């Protein structure tokens, strides 16, 4: 197990180097530089700016300088503003994480709830309603859903703030918007998983023992029924945490997604590469965690090792 973890981490480092290299050269190949604007500064001034950011160096030297920093864990300095990339990540990632985890919690609780409800009322009205909600969550894109929720719950009803990240109330709408798609998928996975497990022998045994239906469903069937959900949680968590760019923009959440976008439009390679490297390592860690969790949940896998 330890060897597997070490191999994974080593692989992650390699990928990180590739990602940083790719980001660096992609931005360098794109036309224009970080300091181009509508009004062009005089060449004398331009030269001073380029010198200050080492943009006057040959490309290989800039690359070597950047990679040397990276090796020391220094992701460099943003070409805009006063922050280093390490600071940008340290300050903004926790909010992306918070948003992602809240969305995940919502998706899991609501998704599993809907799924179990649907499975236990198989082919009855409750099943259809639950699955329609799930389908809605999957099929409505967040750039439609976000404004819709804002209009109803923030502007019309005035229950929740429309934007900004201050206090739990302000987190509800973005987390729900972000989580809905995953809620839908989780509900469907739970439902089909449950439908399959309730037909299995051990569930029948449990029923035969005279256990209450509630206990059968929640204690015995669910445990195996949500295994597909757990498998799905790995990628879902990754998407929820790293993929909230649209939501962050709609709700003005000060997360990392904003920097991801502006770093491309600004040709700010330290920020782009830094975030990519960070996400890369983060995702590898996350996958490791999921594998471990999977082992803990399924007795068959646990005993197999």
């Amino acid at each position, binding site marked *: 197990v330890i060897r597997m973890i070490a191999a994974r981490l080593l692989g992650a480092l390699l990928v990180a180097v590739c990602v940083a290299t790719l980001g660096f050269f992609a931005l360098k190949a794109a036309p224009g530089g970080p300091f181009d604007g509508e009004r062009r500064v005089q060449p*004398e001034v331009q030269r001073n700016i380029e010198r200050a950011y080492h943009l006057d160096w040959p490309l290989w030297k800039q690359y070597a300088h950047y990679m040397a920093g990276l090796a020391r864990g220094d992701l460099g300095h943003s070409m805009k503003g006063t922050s280093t990339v390490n600071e940008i990540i340290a300050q903004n990632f926790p909010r992306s994480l918070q948003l992602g985890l809240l969305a995940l919690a919502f998706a899991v609780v609501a998704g599993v709830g809907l799924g179990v409800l649907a499975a236990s009322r198989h082919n009855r009205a409750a099943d259809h309603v639950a699955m329609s909600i799930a389908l809605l969550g999957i099929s409505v894109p967040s750039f439609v859903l976000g404004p819709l929720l804002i209009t109803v719950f923030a502007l019309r009803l005035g229950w929740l703030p429309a934007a900004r990240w201050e206090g739990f109330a302000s987190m509800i709408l973005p987390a729900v918007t972000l989580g809905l798609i995953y809620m839908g998928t989780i509900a469907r996975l739970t439902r089909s998983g449950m439908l399959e497990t309730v037909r299995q022998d051990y569930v029948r045994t449990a029923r035969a023992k005279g256990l209450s239906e509630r206990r059968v469903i929640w204690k015995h069937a669910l445990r195996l029924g949500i295994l597909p959900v757990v498998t799905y949680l790995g990628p879902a968590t990754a998407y929820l945490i790293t993929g909230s760019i649209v939501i962050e923009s709609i709700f003005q959440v000060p997360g990392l997604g904003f920097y991801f976008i502006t770093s491309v439009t600004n040709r700010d390679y330290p920020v782009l590469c830094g975030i990519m490297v960070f996400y890369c390592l983060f995702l590898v860690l996350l996958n490791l965690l999921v594998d471990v969790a999977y082992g803990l949940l399924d007795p068959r896998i646990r005993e197999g090792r």
Partner: protein
Amino acid sequence: LIVRALAAVLLVGCSVPEGEYFGRVPEPDPTHLRWCNVAEPEYLDPALAVSTADLRVLYELFDGLTTFDENASPKPSLAERWEISDDLRRFTFHLRRDARWSNGRPITSADFVYSLARVLHPLTASANAETLWRIRHGKPYSAGTARLVLADGGGFRAGEAVAVEPEAPPTNLRRARGALELVSSPGGGEVWGRVPGGSELTIVELDPTRAWAYVFFAEDDGLYGWAPLAALDAPHADRVYAVTGLDRPAKGELRGRDLLMLPELLGVRAPDPHTLVLETEGPTPFLLDLSLGRAFRPVPREAVSRHPKRWVRPGNIVTSGPFHLTFWRERDRFELARSPTFWGARSVRLERVTIYSMSEQSANVNVYFQGGCDALASNGVPPSMLPALAGKKDYTAAAYLGSYFYLLNVERLPSVHLRRALSHALDRTSLPRLLKGGQIPSVSLTPGKPIATLTDGELALCGVTRDTPGVAMIVETGKHCYVPPRGAAFDPEAARRELELARAELGARFPRVVTVRFNTGFEQHKTIAEWVQNEWKRVLGLDVELESMEWKTYLKATLAREYDAARYGVVGNFADPEAEFLPQFKCASPDNRTGFCSAELDRLMAEAADERDRGARLALTRRAEAVLLEEMPILPLFVYTQHVLTRPYVRGLHVNLADHQSLRETWIDPDWRRAGR
């Protein structure tokens, strides 16, 4: 699909708010203003700040010689009064004696000498350096080529200004002989940092005794401080430099030891702590307008030296303005508190200001609607919301100091008749209906207020009547008005006539297809391009292709002149066409994107630059703009409008052409309902 349609219906159905005001008017806190800014400010350092979002915060933190009055014209601030020489080259400012930095130290003329030289210094890498090129020797100083002659020799006298070759080895480079302490003043004081022996240092200035040097150490985030000159080796002391006189045509050779780039080179003098003298290159009637800008605002040496890159952060920052920075969180907000050391603190009525950094327009409007901010700065409203705002009492739409136009590539559209035809074919009066933003149709480069909206006094000043078409710019309140000349306005007949002339002139070279380029990111550009395409087809029968490009790619393509027609815009810092709008169209401009070059325009602009009388200057500028609009390398479309939301209880937050405000006189009226409006 059904869901989407439903969502659209719901959105439209729900988002039209009713009532006199937009959204809920919250109960105001009379001590606290919450201002929604339109983007994330990147820099608060006056040397580095460029965007309007930056400036909105910066101008509250850093005071200037002058500050904005309600028209955004200069009025006394750190300078109580000033004298201007008859040749408009020498400006003597008398500084107020009660001005202090937030750390308690008095603000003196020495702060200005330091700060102006800092903006110009190549090490600062300031994008605003060009603003100070009007100051004597400002340009060679920022290019890093100006040198002061320290001792007679090579045909030059000590104290003369010369220039070295741009790539010459740095004369100001020094090497620390041993480990050194960089201290807060010549002769000693607080220790700002230490540098190891052998470190490379750059001399920025010398103290009057010439025994101490203020040096820059580039390691990490950088450090400035004073060190004894005797402790520094000069690696280029014996090197011979070819030099050229800056003030007289002379050439010669000098040793590195006798040359230094020092602030004394600049036309900035501090004869006593409360007098500042600025000397300019040529007559500069708009120097007071320039003095409002960020580049002229002094910064505190003690804060900058220790943290050259991060001195503007809370904890490090030392300010001079009506407010002090107490809290900053990126992508969230700035918290400002009334500064007790500000010279006018007693008249500042707000105790707290919160400036939210919001880059998403719809989020901005939603927050305002919910009562989350007291004012929404201009350009914070998405175009789709504008119709819903019409008629609301807290909404103002006003002319903005910017023009939207199309660049016409004169190399690809080489006939002036063709370019005029393209302009004659466009009925700009349909733009406000199309774009719904109250845009002001224009056929001039220089923006301004619609003549029909001027006051009677302004009409008299401008020498026009209310029914005159076009716009006018008040350059100096009560003194100077600029009515820009008009280019080819909508006239389908003339358009077709000119097109025939162009066909005859170009023959086989007449373009088969005209390509219009625009940048992505704003829906508006696409709407306009489609309209242009349609009109050129309808009126002229031209085939037009549209091409959209990502912003930086677009900038590069237009600079390389890879387009036929392309959208562009220019926004000025202050109202002066000569300083802010025409220079871009001179032959040698780094911003020359059309390939247009007119000796006549250059001559008129050069003549204006030597003219002392501002009225005569503006007349010459007007002739230059007429040349531009005669040749039509640009096709003006409209003057930008600004859309501002301000709660009824906010007083003294002025809407003006340049969109510059100072919150020092802003206040909140809790009795606004009784007071009426």
